[in-house]
């Protein structure tokens, strides 16, 4: 690997696509816009795969050293602090560019069919290009401010894509909500950057990690010593940065935007809100992992618990939702919870770093099967024109390809043996088992639930309500979708089935040294049995229409209701924003400005006018009064002068 600057093309090609299609797309390209966008991305993906292949095949003695391929000072703040645009190559960024370009390419191809009737077809591809550029820039960042910049850019591309159907009020509300909630989290991220850059004296990842992980360094000692509310500066910094990550990755309690984000076109949900952008938070924690693991274990503990709680809450909610995209959204949140707590239970270096590897592994496999699930759901929605489970049923015959690929994805996410999800989830459970028993049991329970709600979804779509299959809406069409929509499903299904066989620990570990993963089949018995139990109970309840689900939901009563209403978290937020912020801060501020501050100004104006009205009377034209005034004034001024100058 000599000349590495070509790597810059990987993010820049999608950007070029964005600029080209954004400026000229509508007028000159029309339906060709899709092909052009896809072509740009295809080249970018090819380069990404090539780069990753080069990187992983040339590890030095099996140890993968980070390489900075390119660096350019974008904005110099002060002597030490600057925002540099860099390309940082290490095992996790290489893995991420593969994931991002692969899924993005699949979505580009799929959208050729899915979005072809859209009026703003070229705009759609422009936005996809913008997103892919931002996401690639994010994962390749070498500077914490650079990652923040791309972080915001993925946020805005997500905003634009969620609000793609901009004349739908629900889409407008959803995109606004997504942006503002993540913005709130980013406030923490920003302050965290300020804290960490101040204590470490650098914005560069390498330097920052180096200064903050050497226990004997003096900067670290002062940073640990300086505390606020009894917590050291580094810990605050870590916590605040994690807040940013939690917002982007939809961790409890900042997850409320993700289900609403499903208002966007379904391929977008697959790309942004399932496989890539939402895992940015996990990636951020992984990127700064040495700091978390070595310097601030407290924060890592928090990360572990936030992940575990999110995983279980989301899984419970997913069991009761009826909109298939929302089920998938909660399942995404739950799976990201798995990745998060895997990081949380990990340590730095050697065998103890298993959680880190497992988390990245799960990120990789999850991207495959979750993108597949969303694209499959998109095909279903395309076919029945509804998001609701009650409008679906018995689709396995009319949509054979979708059915098979969806089944593979469901088995993978449920952790069915020898599919990809099985391997990554077993590793996560193993890591949790070794380091935190409480989280392990939560995770075990959640993975059982996962199997249940995924197969609830599967049976409700492809079995159950067979009569719907013969109804009018579903029979007049013959094809389940054009070839461009089926091809990505097939490719991703292969990935979802086979990705588990990659010896991941060999490539990705905390310290770049290969990690021996020894699998203990006896350990896997319990999770697999639980998973199968989940599948079987879903089979009993949802394979055919029967009164069992209703009975069960009424016997759970309050819990079912709370779960159906997503534990009322949205309502709590609404109360805080509408009642507290708008009525108690915004309205008084506006009132105060209009009446008090401006009132003072008007008062001054009126007083001057009143005064001038009085003064006017002095100019009466009477000589006597003029003389009198003149004399009085002279006396007063003389008095002042004598008093002041003595």
């Amino acid at each position: 690997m000599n000349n590495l600057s070509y790597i810059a093309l990987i993010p820049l090609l999608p950007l070029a696509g964005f600029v080209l299609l954004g400026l000229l797309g509508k007028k000159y390209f029309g339906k060709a816009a899709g092909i052009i966008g896809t072509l740009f991305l295809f080249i970018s993906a090819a380069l990404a795969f090539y780069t990753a292949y080069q990187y992983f095949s040339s590890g030095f003695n099996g140890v993968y050293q980070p390489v900075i391929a390119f660096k350019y000072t974008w904005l110099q703040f002060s002597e030490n602090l600057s925002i540099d645009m860099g390309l940082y190559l290490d095992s996790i960024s290489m893995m991420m560019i593969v994931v991002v370009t692969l899924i993005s390419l699949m979505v580009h191809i799929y959208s050729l069919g899915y979005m072809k009737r859209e009026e703003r077809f070229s705009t759609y591809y422009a936005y996809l290009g913008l997103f892919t550029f931002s996401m690639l820039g994010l994962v390749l960042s070498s500077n914490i401010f650079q990652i923040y910049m791309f972080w915001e850019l993925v946020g805005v591309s997500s905003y634009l894509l969620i609000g793609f159907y901009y004349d739908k009020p629900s889409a407008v509300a959803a995109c606004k909500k997504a942006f503002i909630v993540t913005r709130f989290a980013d406030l923490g991220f920003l302050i965290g950057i300020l804290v960490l850059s101040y204590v470490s004296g650098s914005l560069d990842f390498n330097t920052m990690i180096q200064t903050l992980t050497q226990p004997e360094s003096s900067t670290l000692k002062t940073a640990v010593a300086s505390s606020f509310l009894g917590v050291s500066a580094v810990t605050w910094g870590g916590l605040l940065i994690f807040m940013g990550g939690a917002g982007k990755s939809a961790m409890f309690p900042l997850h409320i935007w993700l289900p609403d984000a499903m208002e966007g076109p379904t391929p977008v949900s697959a790309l942004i809100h399932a496989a890539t952008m939402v895992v940015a938070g996990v990636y951020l924690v992984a990127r700064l992992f040495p700091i978390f693991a070595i310097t601030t274990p407290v924060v890592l503990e928090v990360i572990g618990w936030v992940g575990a709680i999110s995983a279980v809450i989301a899984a419970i909610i997913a069991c009761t939702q009826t909109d298939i995209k929302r089920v998938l959204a909660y399942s995404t949140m739950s799976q990201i919870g798995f990745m998060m707590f895997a990081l949380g239970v990990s340590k730095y270096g050697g065998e103890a770093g298993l959680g880190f590897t497992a988390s990245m592994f799960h990120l990789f496999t999850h991207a495959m099967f979750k993108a597949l699930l969303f694209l499959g759901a998109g095909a279903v929605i395309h076919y029945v024109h509804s998001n609701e489970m009650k409008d679906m049923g018995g689709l396995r015959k009319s949509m054979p390809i979708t059915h098979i690929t969806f089944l593979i994805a469901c088995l993978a996410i449920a952790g069915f043996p020898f599919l990809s999800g099985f391997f990554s989830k077993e590793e996560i459970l193993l890591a949790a088992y070794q380091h935190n028993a409480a989280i392990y049991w939560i995770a075990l329970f959640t993975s059982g639930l996962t199997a249940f709600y995924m197969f609830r979804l599967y049976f409700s779509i492809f079995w159950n309500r067979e009569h719907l299959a013969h109804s009018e809406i579903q029979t007049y069409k013959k094809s389940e979708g054009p070839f461009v929509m089926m091809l990505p499903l097939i490719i991703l299904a292969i990935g979802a089935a086979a990705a588990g066989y990659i010896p991941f620990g060999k490539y990705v570990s905390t310290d770049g040294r290969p990690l021996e993963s020894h699998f203990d089949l006896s350990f896997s018995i319990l999770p697999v049995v639980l998973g199968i139990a989940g599948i079987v109970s879903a089979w009993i309840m949802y394979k055919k229409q029967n009164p069992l689900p209703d009975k069960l939901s009424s016997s759970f009563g309050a819990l079912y209701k709370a779960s159906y209403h997503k534990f009322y978290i949205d309502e709590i937020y609404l109360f805080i924003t509408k009642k507290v912020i708008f009525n108690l801060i915004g309205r008084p501020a506006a009132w105060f400005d209009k009446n008090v501050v401006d009132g003072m100004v008007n008062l001054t104006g009126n007083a001057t006018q009143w005064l001038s009205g009085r003064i006017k009377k002095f100019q009466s034209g009477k000589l006597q009064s003029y003389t009198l005034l003149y004399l009085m004034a002279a006396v007063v001024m003389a008095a002042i002068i004598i008093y002041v100058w003595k």
Partner: protein
Amino acid sequence: MNLLLLLCIPLITSLAILPVRSRAMVRWISLFGSVAQLAAAVFLFFAYNQERDTGNTAVVLFEDHFKFISNPEINFHFGVDGIAVAMILLTSFVLVAGVLVSWKIEKMTREFYFLLLLLALGAFGFFISLDLFVLFFFLEISVIPKYLLIGIWGSGKKEYAANKLALMLMGGSALILVGILLLYFNAGHTFDVLQLSHTNINGQLQKTVFPLLFIGFGVFTALFPFHTWVPDGHSSAPTAGSMFLAGISMKLGGYGCLRIATFLLPEGAREYANIIIILSAIAILYGAFATMMQKDLKYINAYSSVSHVGFSLLGIGMLTQTAFTGALLQMVSHGVMTALFFAVIGIIYDRTHTRQVNEMGGLMKLLPFTMTAFFIVGLCSLGLPGLSGFVAEMTVFVGSWENADAFHRIATIAACVSIVVTAVYILRAIGKVAMGPLFVNNITKGMESNSMKDATWNEKLALIILIGGILAIGIMPEWLNKLLKPSAEMIMNRFTGN
């Protein structure tokens, strides 16, 4: 480069249109003059950089002296540093855009353009002057046209707004004048900025004069609580008037606060720095929260200006070099951004005859070009990377964080909170105006909605010029940063005693 050129072009142009009777001629002459001015400004930028690259480290470049009055000694002393060059570039950009968006003005076109050019002339003179008296003179030149622009071509309660604006700005000017005279009589009988900077001004005098100058200039740049002319002034002014007010006039104040008050009176600045920080932190948050409740687009931008300009003042109060640079970046960025915002609002108002956000919706369908500009300026306002606002705000934040005590930390965090509030009000406005189902209150009554045309060529050109400015700073900030930083360093040296 001869700086007098920068005065001559607007002066000659404004005089040249006076005898012209044809409206079209007036427009084209004004456009020609302002483009020439822009060219001169760009040339100045390159000439300045070239001079610096050859190692010229003088405080100001391209100096010029002309005797004016010998007793008291008032001279035309001109010269520019990096800050002035940046401000001149900004002003000429806004000038061209302002001339372009006013193309459709039918009422007393000649007088309108004359006043616009006069206002710009005042600003250019202000930025190149190094003599406090002359500087004050140019400042006043720029006030009168505002009064007339609002009073004659304005809308709504324009008389009230014009009076309020003129009186408040005059009040500010009075404070500045007193400050200047106090300096003259007590510190070496000179109005010359450079000479004053070498004079040892005693601490007591500094502490007396600093608040006069800072509040005086502060009124121009909407220092809390002297900002109330901003909402009324902007909302009543014609589009170009608002653009000039926010894009140029407010920058005169910011420039004065930093380049004159803080530069000349470092001890005074140190004394009052904490008060400045408190006031600007209040302005940032309070302006943002007040914006949330506004329904009129111009009020939204006016209050958000109060909030954004707060970042400039905060940067000044922080007294670090990075924060100074940030304050200056924010002045330039806010100037372009807010001019663009007002231009967009003007175009919307022209089509819909309303500025109330809840009286329209879904305009993306009818006015895609204008709405795209609206999106861009909104995103710039909420600090999206790649657009100018981000660069400026982040520099202010990083610079502020260099002060390690709790007071500065809290003020900085309070300022950071505004990035969330800004997102709330910007996205609300965009969500209401550009997105959602298409509807316009007035149009359903009389006009056909498909009779609404997107921006015309002149409007498009104005938007493109300003968007270009935002992108030029946002994508490649280092050129502007390099221009401003040495000057910020020079001001900082007054504090560190180098």
